[in-house]
């Protein structure tokens, strides 16, 4: 089974702190994503990566950056956390489009609930 693991389920940080959220997948997927989930807003894409060291902005990239140094790991970075970044963060992955492994399904981690005080 595909496993997507997010390093922290719950975090509490203070305004201005630097925050790292890490995600690791074990199925050799090329594409990895960070979403933010807020009530009434659904899932909004922050950043995605289609290869090592490659990244693309999603719909709400402001205040976030990402790092993908290895294929299996995709990190989300909040350089200076703010209270409006309190949210649930979901990491997801899927294989390269056009590959036989790609059924279109996104595989999700369990989520990281971040509270910024």
């Amino acid at each position, binding site marked *: 089974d595909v496993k997507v693991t997010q390093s922290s389920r719950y975090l509490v940080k203070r305004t201005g702190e630097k925050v790292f959220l890490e995600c690791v997948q074990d199925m050799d997927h*090329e*594409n990895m*994503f960070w*979403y933010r989930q807020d009530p*009434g*807003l*659904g*899932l909004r*894409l922050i950043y*995605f990566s*289609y290869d090592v060291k490659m990244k*693309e902005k*999603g719909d709400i990239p402001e205040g976030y950056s990402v790092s993908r140094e290895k294929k299996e790991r995709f990190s989300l970075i909040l350089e200076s956390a703010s209270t409006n970044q309190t949210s649930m963060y*979901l990491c*997801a992955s899927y294989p*390269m*489009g*056009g590959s036989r492994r790609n*059924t*279109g*399904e*996104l595989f*999700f*981690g*369990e*989520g990281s609930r971040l509270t910024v005080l």
Partner: protein
Amino acid sequence: AQTVTQSQPEMSVQEAETVTLSCTYDTSESDYYLFWYKQPPSRQMILVIRQEAYKQQNATENRFSVNFQKAAKSFSLKISDSQLGDAAMYFCAYRRPTGGYQKVTFGTGTKLQVIP
């Protein structure tokens, strides 16, 4: 840009009854995937069912089935014989299938309550 709309923020159903969750989408593409994902409380989001737009036959997975109306851009999920374990947030999602990477667009979700 593609948009996905779920107009029912919350729904409830009696155990063993049938419920239908609505989803509409907007796209200019002719080929795409549609999905329903389930997110149980404090648990991982998982795929419930997938529909490929070029397939006219509605997808079915056990108690879950869809009513895919391509012309109307509608993609509803029917849950038959509802069980307590079906209580969750349900998200409708859209994705283009063609190569490389493709963004997945989600609706705002429907919270389903199952009443014993």
